[in-house]
């Protein structure tokens, strides 16, 4: 094992040798769940295919050729393969570690280099100016306290692409009378580093993690809330693996974990069922499980429990849900490396939404919202309303008296 304080995550490709070998010899018991395989239908572009490529590389039988690198990056790291694996092999982790080797050998795909460049220069994955991270949230920042027990870690996608999720979160917390602060200004929240860990840029991720831990320490907050499952996973699971630790008394929670504990306070605040303007009838909602929130953090029921607090809410399920949920297509840096493949996966998930007509597709992840929205805008095949769970709650909560 890697010694403490190493710059690498606390395990290496060779630590997983036994598992990657077994995966490479499997009769492909999980192939049917792999989103990129289901588009390409290629046996090399599948969990077992990637495991075999890793084994060939480890055994000195194959270099990291262009095709090998492509197959290793044609993966959403969604973890669906784990749900179908009886021994629960951590193949996605092994693929991440193989990507670290790709980066170390200077063979990283161009799209991922852009991620690395953006985060090192601008501290966000989109390459937007860092000092504009909170620019779209000025209206809610005005009345915000600068110190509080609770801090909201916004994350890049919410900050730069879907600030309405932060506004909705602000509304929900305000309705509940919960005092919280942002990690803005001198406290300086930066990208959580999750996209870099997933893409193999471990050194860059570590640098971001250190900045965030410093910001959180300086804020004095005891609870860090986030609406992004990728950020939650990074802060909860990846940072300790990187050897970077938040103070023990600091808890990190995804907003659904936090709010489900406030259910008793929330329920009486819900003013009315959701209604369409056109028909006045109650809308149906389908909850999409984000991969990081579900398979990685094991959080399946809290978002559903929150949506069920809404009187008359008709909560539908995808045919593949919870542990077996399909990826939105946005995971594993795929939109950066193979955008057409990612888009095809997103289209499939959108098409699988039950009661697609005039209903809500609800997730609890800004990246899922981003990819669903972008793809729907392009294909215009459905009239789904794609919202974050925080936006739904913000719509139905009334002012406290």
């Amino acid at each position, binding site marked *: 094992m890697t010694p403490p304080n190493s710059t690498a995550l606390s395990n290496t490709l060779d630590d997983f040798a*036994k598992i990657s070998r077994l995966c490479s*010899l499997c*009769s*492909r018991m999980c192939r049917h769940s792999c989103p990129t395989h289901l588009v390409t239908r*290629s046996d090399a572009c599948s969990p077992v295919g990637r495991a075999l490529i890793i084994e*060939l590389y480890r055994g000195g039988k194959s270099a990291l050729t262009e*095709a090998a690198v492509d*197959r290793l990056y044609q993966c959403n790291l969604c973890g669906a393969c784990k749900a179908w694996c009886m021994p629960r092999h951590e193949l996605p982790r092994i693929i991440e570690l193989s990507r670290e080797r790709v980066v170390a050998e200077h063979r990283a795909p161009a799209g991922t280099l852009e991620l690395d460049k953006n985060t090192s220069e601008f501290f966000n994955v989109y390459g937007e100016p860092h000092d504009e991270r909170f620019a779209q949230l000025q209206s809610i920042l005005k009345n915000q306290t600068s110190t509080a027990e609770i801090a909201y870690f916004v994350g890049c996608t919410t900050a730069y692409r879907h600030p309405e999720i932060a506004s909705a979160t602000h509304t929900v917390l305000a309705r509940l009378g919960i005092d919280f602060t942002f990690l803005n200004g001198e406290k300086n929240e930066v990208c959580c580093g999750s996209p870099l860990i997933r893409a193999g840029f471990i050194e860059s991720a570590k640098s971001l993690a250190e900045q965030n831990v410093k910001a959180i320490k300086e804020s004095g907050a005891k609870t860090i809330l986030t609406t992004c499952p990728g950020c939650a996973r990074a802060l909860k699971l990846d940072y300790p693996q990187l050897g970077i630790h938040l103070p023990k008394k600091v808890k990190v929670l995804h907003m659904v974990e936090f709010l489900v504990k406030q259910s008793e306070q929330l329920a009486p605040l819900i003013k009315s069922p959701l209604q369409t303007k056109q028909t006045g009838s109650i809308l149906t909602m389908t909850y999409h499980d984000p991969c990081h929130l579900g398979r990685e953090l094991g959080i399946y029921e809290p978002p559903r429990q929150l949506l069920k607090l809404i009187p008359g809410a008709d909560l539908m399920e995808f045919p593949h849900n919870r542990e077996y949920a399909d990826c939105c297509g946005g995971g594993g840096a795929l939109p950066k490396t193979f955008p057409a493949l990612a888009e095809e996966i997103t289209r499939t998930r959108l098409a699988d939404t039950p009661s697609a007509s005039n209903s809500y597709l609800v997730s609890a992840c800004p990246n899922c919202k981003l990819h669903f929205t972008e793809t729907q805008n392009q294909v215009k095949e459905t009239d789904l309303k794609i919202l974050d769970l925080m936006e739904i709650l913000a719509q139905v909560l009334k002012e406290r008296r």
Partner: protein
Amino acid sequence: MSAASTAFNVNRVKRQLEVWLGKENVSDAEVDKINYSRDAWPLRLLRLGRLIIEAKPDLIVWPQTVEQIQRIVKLANQESIPIIPVSGAGGVAGGILATTGGIIVDVKKMNRVLFLDEESFTVTVEPGILGYELEEYLEARGYTTGHLPSSIYSSALGGFAAARSAGVLSSKYGKIEDMITGLEVVLPTGELLRTKAVPRSSMGPDLKQLFIGSEGTYGIITELTLRIAPSPEETQFASFLFPDLHSGMNAVKQVFRQDLKPALIRLYDENETRFVLSRFKPPSDGACVLNFIYRATKDFVRLEKRTVTKICLEGGAEDLGPGPSKHWWNNRFDLYYPSSMNMGPGMLYDVLDVASSYANLEKMYWEMRKAIEAFGVGTMSHFSHFYPDGGNIYVIFVGHANSPEEVETKYQQIWDAGLEAAHRAGGTLSHQHGVGLLKAPWMPIEHGETGFALLQAIKQYLDPNNIMNPGKLGFGNETSKFPKEGASQ
């Protein structure tokens, strides 16, 4: 019969195929070719575990239409390039290994359900749809094919037909050849053959049956129509412990003589019974478990359960309740995941799947056990597909050897001895796993000289240049029982 040429201008052919199929549907990348140099044949996997690279194709293509397949096959036929059709690649006999190089035609992109005929209770599909995908589609609409092999996640409809497969509930639903009512096949010269999808016909021999079990040597299956059944209203489980194998076997015969067809009838020998009951109760020496699954309407399940229970109790069995049968059903895929048990250094394992009439079945079992256990390996066996007139045996062997070379030698000796014993006892040498490379040398023995010559003559007529899946089923120049290590690197 001469084998197709293994030397062809790969780059030129690749460029042509890219024009027809699009660049994204053609690959000669090394890592892709290695990924297509394996199925689930234990010997190939044991070698792959040692990172032995062999049996690579020169190209892989993913056609999306029948017309594309016809073009590919015509080109290959003109230039004598081997073609290896692949769908799920879940076979266990080396049936898709490109031992002579050539083009792998992976049909998995042809995965549509073309027509669900709810009046006739049939479904028409393309060959690349996985068994799991089709069952998921049908289940959502209240149907099932009933064809549920343990490879269902990794095998596809084209492969089911090509390898003449059987699902675990075959006693009720039948085997793949009972389900298929119509086929479309691209012949090795590129012509298209369609058989009418009808319940039965007496217009001469049944042409579609020629292709079911031909393992890609007679053509590429491009469309199948299958019978479907309603999703069961009721499923129940039952297990009985018999004092010995013979009394268990007698009970099975009685079940058929009462005109019953439980979905699953699965009789374990004493060795596998100890394994099956490990979490329930230790059996007495020689005792054998007989599992049943009933799947039908509630009324029929009640009748079946009552009658089967009466037969078993009168046959001297102890009623174990639903536990062991239900446990098997819920965990039936567990053994298909590789583990250090079967993939560790020096380990060797496989399964012989043979069948015979009741008159020979028990004798065949004992003789195979004796022949296989003589090599110092352990066996456990079950009888899992039954008919009114007989059944199959699944003899699993697991052992150890001191070197990779010894693993291969012992593996081959065990197969030879086991199949020889089965043949002597009057059994067929494969019930459901097919021939591939593994059992290719046994084809003349199975069919006799006249029978095998007839199959070869048909092959010669259909495929004069021997391009289709060379070496499988014992056709062509492939005379070695196993591909030489490192063949076609």
